[in-house]
């Protein structure tokens, strides 16, 4: 009996593998980056089954509210979204009511403000970009709704940035009013170091170190960028298990169909 003709000669597959490996090596970043890569942290949302730790994310929301939100907006989020952090609707209502947000026009046509409801967007610290720049010496703090997705290796980057403040190395020329950060591209960041030990007061007894605050706020920001994570990964596991099962069944059917050809099925089918 004749053996089936191979798709590629064996030597050839080897050559191809070598060639692709060589090109793959060239694909690695060739030049040394001036800004170091932020070290990888062990996040609750890492890995196939990882989802954001909601307690950390709730503490992170506290850090955002008390520190970050003085300058950074999160306009994609509504207070109602906070139920996704494990808060009850009553809690969300209470949290929302502590913020004063624009509430349309009053009866005389003047813009009015009032306590937020769960339906409101997160309060923005500035009315617009110009107002922000005027208040902050020309700097414009980016919206944080999607910040973890909007930077390469976002979670590690934001954590690195928040904990990467340091004295500039000797001979490093700093511009007026800028701060040195190990992981910010170019090292000069307008934002003063936002987190310090004891910057916030946690109610659950978690120590308020700079590191802990940074971890918590990054977890919150990851959740804010990807609020569907827990639902997505849980659904993914079920769907992929189902598809594997379906593949097995389909393959069995295909084999059965192939066998109907007689004692000697065609080799390629």
């Amino acid at each position, binding site marked *: *009996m*004749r053996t*089936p*003709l191979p*798709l*590629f*000669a064996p030597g*050839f597959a080897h*050559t*191809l593998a070598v*060639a*692709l490996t060589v*090109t*793959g090596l*060239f*694909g690695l970043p*060739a030049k040394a980056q001036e800004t170091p890569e932020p070290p990888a942290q062990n996040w609750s949302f890492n890995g*196939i089954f990882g989802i954001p730790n909601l307690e950390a994310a709730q503490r992170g929301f506290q850090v955002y509210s008390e520190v970050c939100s003085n300058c950074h907006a999160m*306009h*994609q*989020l509504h207070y109602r*979204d906070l139920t996704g952090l494990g808060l009850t609707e009553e809690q969300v209502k209470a949290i929302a009511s502590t913020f004063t947000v624009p509430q349309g026009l009053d009866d005389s046509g003047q813009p009015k403000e009032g306590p937020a409801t769960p339906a409101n967007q997160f309060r923005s610290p500035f009315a617009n970009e110009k107002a922000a720049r005027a208040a902050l010496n020309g700097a414009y703090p*980016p919206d944080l*709704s*999607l910040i973890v*997705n*909007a*930077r*390469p290796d*976002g979670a590690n980057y934001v954590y690195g940035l928040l904990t990467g403040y340091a004295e500039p190395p000797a001979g490093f020329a700093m511009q007026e009013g800028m701060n040195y950060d190990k992981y910010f591209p170019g090292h000069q960041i307008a934002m003063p170091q936002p987190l310090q030990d004891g910057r916030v007061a946690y109610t659950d007894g978690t120590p308020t170190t700079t590191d802990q605050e940074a971890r918590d706020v990054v977890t919150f920001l990851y959740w804010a*960028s990807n*609020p*569907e994570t827990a639902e*997505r*990964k849980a*659904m*993914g*596991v079920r*769907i*992929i298990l189902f*598809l*594997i099962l*379906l*593949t097995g069944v*389909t*393959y069995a*059917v*295909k084999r059965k*169909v*192939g066998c*109907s*050809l*007689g*004692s*000697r099925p*065609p*080799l*390629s*089918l």
Partner: protein
Amino acid sequence: MAGLHKSDLPNPVLNWIDSRLPIISMMQKEYGVFPTPRNFNYFWNFGALAMVTLVVMILTGIFLAMSYQPNTGLAFDSVQHIMRDVNYGWLIRYVHQNGASMFFIVTYIHIFRGLYYGSYKAPRELLWMLGVVILLLMMATAFMGYVLPWGQMSYWGATVITNLFSAFPGVGKYIVTLLWGGFSVDQPTLNRFFSLHYLLPFVLVGVVFLHVAALHIVGSNNPLGIEPRGPQDTLPFHPYYTSKDSVGICVFLIVWAAFVFFAPNLLGDPNNFIEANPLQTPADIVPEWYFLPYYAILRSVPNKLLGVCMMFGSLLVLFILPWLDTSRVRSARFRPTYRWLIMVWVVSFVVLGICGAHKPEGIWVILSRIAALYYFGHFLVIMPILGKLERPLPLPESITQAVTGRPIEVAVVGRPLESH
């Protein structure tokens, strides 16, 4: 009077319909008993995979369009609205977003299969050329779709790519103005891209129909590249290849689902999570991965017009491939030299893709030039000459003889399943 189609369906209602509009007979002929070479390998799944992807893309796209706002002030936030507020909006969007990449993966493998087994050769030239039209339409659709979320890479990608047309002398700037609907990428551009992004997939469906129609006239190629010589060399499409395609579709859906559920943004660019800002250019403007090889060809040429011509030429050259290949043997299995060189071409395509992701500096320029030279040299120089010089291996007498090792007379003829 032309009279009714003679339908032999037992069901009176179906018979009544089929006599007047023989679509059931047609489906039976084209997808039921359609004679298909018996020796397909899994590379022959990828046409069906592309078809499945197209259908999923159209369905998810229709639902996305229900909540999307083609307005420069609203587009970015409307996508986030889909992701956060629309029921299962994140699922629909991630399926659509990753579906574009899946579409290109299966289409590129489908094209590779055509190149390796010589599926473009007579009598399948027009089938192949329709395929190239499909590829071009897909690229146009994907490009315009990528602009719609109105992120930084959407905006700047659109600016760079549409600006390429300005390289054409004389008419260039008019073409660009026409594409933009103004003097920069702005509201009219976004609005017309949305319109065209919704239209082109249906044009694509039309061309796919012609592609399949042409396939059903000339019949499928197969891994041996020899024509079936009789019924013993073929199997009815159903159930043999419907069952085999189903296996491939399931495996394909696992890969697609892995991206959607566990790495939905792996193939995307972080910059596209930042809303478009015409006043701030990103450090690197990089197209989606599936355009990188062509982008590398563009940037490997120092002259802009020549670069643009090379980039379009790298696709248009596929149209004349059936006449560039002078070898009479289809399958690379029987072409000892071509079998190596087509893989070198694949490597050159991959190298171009890697080069396209890097700034055109230093080694990347040199590499992309070498790879681009081989890309074109393979088609324009090697193929015409090699076909004359190469001594192909002896072809098997028939498909059946090759797959069973038995002579034709006693070969087992495929018969339908009893239970079916």
